[in-house]
């Protein structure tokens, strides 16, 4: 299982990367693997507000509809238009397929996120 050390994670299987002032969010290898072929993605719009722990979008595989949850609260600054047209990219390259980038309104929430080691443990427990 690929769990990059330089990313943060949530218990709902999102990954988080901080780059300058923006926080990029996607779903993990574990998540795409358990969903199967991703065929549709729904994302918020730039300017929308997202709240930590609330669903900000939807990832659909052939069989299932799964919510994706905001790891931090903030404002959506960018969305990845490319994966809306090529959702299968999430299966092939989950850590390269960011979904949205937010500007966080409360970076103190950052410390609560899981590191790679804690996330790996969580995946093992779920298996």
């Amino acid at each position, binding site marked *: 299982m690929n769990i990059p050390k330089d990313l943060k994670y949530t218990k709902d299987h999102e990954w988080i990367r901080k780059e300058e002032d923006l926080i990029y969010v996607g779903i993990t290898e574990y998540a795409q693997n358990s969903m199967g072929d991703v*065929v549709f993605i729904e994302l918020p719009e730039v300017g929308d507000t997202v709240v930590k722990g609330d669903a900000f979008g*939807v990832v659909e595989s*052939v*069989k299932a509809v799964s919510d994706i949850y905001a790891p931090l609260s903030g404002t959506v600054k960018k969305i990845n238009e490319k994966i809306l047209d090529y959702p299968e990219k999430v299966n092939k390259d989950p850590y390269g397929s960011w979904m949205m980038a937010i500007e966080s309104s409360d970076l103190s929430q950052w410390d609560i996120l899981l590191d790679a080691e804690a996330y790996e443990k969580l995946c093992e427990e779920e298996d």
Partner: protein
Amino acid sequence: MKKTPLYQVHRDLKSKMIDFGDWMLPVQYFGIVDEHNNVRNRAGLFDVSHMGEIIVKGPNAEKYIQKIVTNDISKMKNHQIIYTPMCYFHGGVVDDLLVYRMNDTKYLMVVNAANIEKDLQWMLKNCKEEVEIEDVSDKIAQLALQGPESEAILQKLTETPLDALPFYTFQDNVELGGVKVLVSRTGYTGEDGFEIYARPEEIPGLWKKLLESGKQEGLMPAGLGARDTLRLEAALPLYGYEISQDVSPLEARLEGFVKLDKTGFIGKEALARQKEKGLERKLAGIQITGRGIPRQGYRVQCGHKDIGFITSGSYSPSIGKNIGLAMLASEYTQIGRKVDIIIRGKSTDAEVVKLPFYTKKYKR
């Protein structure tokens, strides 16, 4: 939870297993889209051992079956198969099934796994004729070999000439890889293919032999996920989705399997009345033109007015579009009609399209 004879095999293949009508079955092995495409282009092998089998026999068997199903079995010859709904008196569907005519006095009925017990009760309750009804579901397991390469793959394992076996016919006592089986040219994918019935203990050996035999042709296992997308593209109904006790076969576009000119079968009066009055609703094909995937239960609207609901929906691997079957008020079912699907509270553009979504490739 029930397990098929291939439970351990599925486990070893690291398939994802799900609970399907109280059976542990593989939903996918490698990925639904790959498995789907492999069936369309080459061949796929499905474990469908959960299906139910009921034998009806005795001199009155034909007369009895004529009474409980809507299709006409009186013109069947030995080794022929027909598809038919079995209805309640009010016209709703008890189950949809295949009837195999073994001989003049013996028929095999293949029914949905989740309906075995209900079907048996219904059949016994409505049996005044002297016939023998036996549930042999535990004694028979089933594999489905589906896709354009199926005949080539299966032929390598048997002397029985398969090109002489037309669509919807079968042969019993076929020797397949050293085992006696029943082979029928049937399936649930819209492709040419075979269904193979054997004793449960023979199934793991047959599975292995078939996969070996089909290696060159690209045969791969396929799970329930692909089975569902394949049948949806071919617009084949699934009990509990397109048909149920609350839906009549006429509403579900199965009028070709309802012979209203046949004397006295259960549901005839209700179905004839429905036909005479005209259908208030019927099944239609939907293609999303906006963004989103239709799923079972989603509402369909036209100008903010509810006009029906999605019965099955998915991304379609063969067409590359998001498609669904929907039960709609009849006046909205003409091809090209623009409708809205309500997906997570938002309205998404869609239109009514011709069925099936995928042209079936049966061997006649």
